[in-house]
């Protein structure tokens, strides 16, 4: 490839990162906006502010790699190439949802893009990733699984059991901590001793990396290393990405009036918006223009309008099917 072609390819990749983050941002904001219509009748945990962790890390994966997520899974699903119509229909409780309406926002499963599961019991899903990776090895596949978990989830025993198992069995899994430093309304320092979260990897002789979770390219670079290690038989890695949840823990609103986190902290993180900072960088690098941004927004708005209309037009699942598929 010529130098110019290489540069163009690099620009295209960066634009994709931006587009993917902006897609998550706009979709989550639209969910927040429409939530009061009371048509999305399930709890939603939005990932606004945390777009770079999902997008940067998924950009380091192939389509046949898998991810596992938690209660806060919209961003992961979208970053992994998820079907927006299927996600929204699921949140609207409709038959065309990725789980046929059975799961709601907190259970997004979509094999076709490698969204193996999202499970809303904190850390419950972590060992599933270790097992998923065990299966790749068993079948001679060079796939990798990323498990996304919050800082709170690292307090569960099963997280530590999973770290140990993954290290001992050297399975191709990446534990990706999105450290927004809160578990609901309780700050990290009130729940864990103060030390770098990456120290936990030492106990399991596991490589680790910490990264600015609002810098999508840094996240991609760090994840790519971990994924390459896993893919080549080098075993698991722990990644800690610091980021911030902008809105309330659960629901569409802001909750800064509750006073559980200082406004200066909120403002400082918002000033470091992962989408806007990267957008500005691309503009400065001459990769993106304001017109280009507007075009991207228009493209996403069109996809969204269609997907919301699709979700709302999708029928509710037939109550007669409620007892189907209890056993395989």
């Amino acid at each position, binding site marked *: 490839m010529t130098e110019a072609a290489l540069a163009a390819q690099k620009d295209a990749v960066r634009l994709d990162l931006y587009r993917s983050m902006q897609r998550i941002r706009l979709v989550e904001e639209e969910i927040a906006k429409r939530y009061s219509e009371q048509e999305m009748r399930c*709890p939603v945990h939005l990932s606004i502010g945390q777009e770079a962790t999902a997008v940067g890390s998924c950009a380091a994966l192939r389509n046949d790699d898998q991810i596992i997520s938690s209660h806060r899974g919209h961003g992961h699903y979208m970053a992994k190439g998820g079907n927006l119509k299927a996600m929204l229909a699921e949140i609207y409780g409709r038959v065309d949802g990725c789980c046929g*309406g059975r799961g*709601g926002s907190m*259970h997004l499963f979509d094999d076709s893009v490698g969204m193996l599961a999202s499970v*809303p019991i904190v850390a419950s899903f972590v060992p599933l990733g270790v097992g998923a990776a065990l299966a790749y090895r068993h079948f001679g596949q060079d796939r990798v699984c990323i498990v996304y978990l919050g800082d709170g989830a690292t307090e569960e025993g099963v997280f530590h059991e999973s770290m140990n198992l993954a290290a001992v069995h050297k399975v191709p899994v990446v534990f990706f901590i999105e450290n927004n430093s809160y*578990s609901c309304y309780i700050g990290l320092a009130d729940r864990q001793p103060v030390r770098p979260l990456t120290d936990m990897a030492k106990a399991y002789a596991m490589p680790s990396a910490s990264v600015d979770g609002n810098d999508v390219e840094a996240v991609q670079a760090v994840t790519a290393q971990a994924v390459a290690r896993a893919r080549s038989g080098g075993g698991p890695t722990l990644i800690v990405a610091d980021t911030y949840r902008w809105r309330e823990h659960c629901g569409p609103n802001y909750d800064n009036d509750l006073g559980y986190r200082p406004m200066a902290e909120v403002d400082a993180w918002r000033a470091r918006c992962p989408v806007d900072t990267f957008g500005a960088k691309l503009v400065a690098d001459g990769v993106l223009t304001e017109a280009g941004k507007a075009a991207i927004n228009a493209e996403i708005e069109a996809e969204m309008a269609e997907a919301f209309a699709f979700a709302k037009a999708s029928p*509710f699942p037939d*109550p007669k099917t*409620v*007892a189907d598929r209890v056993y395989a």
Partner: protein
Amino acid sequence: MPEQRVISAAQAIREATDLAMAADPAVIIMGEGIADPKTIFGTTDQLMEKYGPARVMEMSIAENGFTGMAIGAAMNGLRPIIVHQRVEFALLTMEQLVNNAAKMHYVSNGAHKAPIVVRLIVGRGWGQGPAHSQSLETLFAHIPGLKVVMPASAHDAKGLLLSAITDDSPVVFIEHRWMHYVKGHVPEGWAALPLDGPARLTQGDAVTVVSNSYMTLETIRAVEALAAEGVAVEHFDLRVVRPLNVDPIVESVKRTGRLLTVDTGFATYGVGAEIVARVMERCCLTMKAAPRRIGLPEHPTPSSRSLAAAFYPRSPDIAQALAELAGLDQARITAIHNRLAEEREALPFDVPHPSFQGPF
């Protein structure tokens, strides 16, 4: 008579906790979110301000660990109250509860006690779905050594919680989230109620019905509908699932010859299954109709409201079963069912029905 005070069950739970903590410095409370701005749906409101972090302990997300910690502390004289915002989070603690808490007194031949209270909240509605709205009381009720309490009113929530906290055995105290809103007359001060079994809510000779927790509220509506038709149902609110006191129920079924049980959880291997078995052991030969059970069907809780609507039994279903057991003719059965169904279907199913908010 002075005007009786009306408060919600959530307020009653808070009041009982406050009273118990004031009365005994060994009472501590621990859980995720007990001192956050939402204070577990208001049930731990102001406790941190009043008793401080040494007794109101905000927990890391480590349920099995802190449950074991509570048991160890209880063995050395503390009286910990544990709170989980959903029953499901306590599934992580089954090992500690079943292997340690339930057996400590027995295995030590009486030397140890593990007086903990585990408050568990059952979620329902708003599409919470498969992992946030299960009613799993029978998992706990299966274990000798645990006590299992399920209040249905503000009055009982306060009185039974006070007794649970002073009880020397581990008590699993299950609060249905929709029960938190229920208002009722609740006496001030130390109004403990013994953990002694069912309460008779109505008297009657036609049918005996036993319900628990939130389903007691649905059953009250059904029993009212039958009363309006001149059918007197004897209604028991079970309150204490373990140890199970069936004596008053047996006495009633000996008169009525008809029994319906209404569970918040699964019908299969459910609380109703145990009640029916116990009653049949003593009343089998005097029954006028085969006993019936209402409970959740054989599948997980779906999120979508169209599916969840088909999942939960409601007052029209209960009324229909009662009317059938009472031997009413088909036209009256249908009329009773439809009247209740009309009332219920006018409003969404996935939020608490206003007629259940009391005061009771």
